[in-house]
């Protein structure tokens, strides 16, 4: 008669559990390693960030964003008509951003206030501050 049937049984089951967990653990490590390897070459510099702007109901939301040179600024058109994000002579021009589309700008190196509008709807006004 086994004096410690419970303990012995638990020990075996514990090993079995570890044996089952091991592949999961290895897979997790492998995935994490793979992810960091894939992300490394194309990842933006540590300081770069992505600022999103929603276009909705004839408004740029938020109307003012502040970014650093090299940051990404993304406009997504959630309105019912096409829009643009366009500055004056020097700056940027998205061209037509269709309904449901996104346009991404890499913030220019030159610091300053970039006032922009929608060329289709001149009453839409907003600003990107590069600092």
């Amino acid at each position, binding site marked *: 008669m086994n004096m410690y049937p419970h303990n012995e049984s638990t020990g075996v089951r514990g090993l079995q559990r570890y044996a089952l967990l091991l592949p999961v653990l290895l897979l997790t490590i492998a995935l994490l390693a793979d992810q960091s390897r894939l992300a490394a070459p194309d990842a933006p510099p540590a300081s770069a960030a992505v600022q999103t702007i929603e276009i909705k109901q004839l408004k740029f939301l938020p109307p003012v964003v502040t970014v650093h040179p090299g940051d990404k600024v993304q406009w997504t058109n959630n309105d*019912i008509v096409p829009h643009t994000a366009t500055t004056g002579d020097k700056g940027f021009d998205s061209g037509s951003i269709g309904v449901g589309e996104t346009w991404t700008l890499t913030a220019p190196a030159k610091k300053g206030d970039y*006032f922009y509008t929608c060329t289709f*709807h001149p009453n839409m006004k907003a600003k990107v501050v590069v600092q």
Partner: protein
Amino acid sequence: MKIQVIAAAIVLVTGLSLAPRSYAQAPTDPQIVGIVLAADDIDINYGKIALSKSKNKDVRAFAQQMVTDHSAVQKSVRDLAAKLGVTPQDSDTSKSLNSKAEEITTKLNTLKGKAFDKFYIDNEVVYHKQVTDAVAAVLIPSAQNAELKSALEGAQPLFLGHLEHSQKVQASVEKGKSAMTAKAY
């Protein structure tokens, strides 16, 4: 002052009114869809006439925008109506809109040059004022279906934007020089 007088005169002459008082009773959802489609159609047609006749840069840009935007609104309204199973229905309001639009269209077809630009943009200011007033005071409160109500609320800023845009073009036509080419800020 002069602009208001002209705008008032157009209202009086055309009798074009979407004002709430013109509704004997609240329009039904199919009638609301019918009114919105008719109103869009009318402005698209005005815009097409302006594109074929006007040489004014600001007027042409505005007219093109009206064609583009109201076509987009029409499509989204048609899509929503189809999704909701609502069949657009004529009403006294949509019929009245169409009959007044015929008068305006006739007038637009007879005018040329600056007189055309002026009549077109003055009418656009009045038309968008009436449309935005009617959407806020009648169409949104009357809409029974929540999605239709929400779509009307979502489109209202666009119509208000058109009103503001038309007023700027009106001012530039009055002055005889472009105000729209100035810097946005």
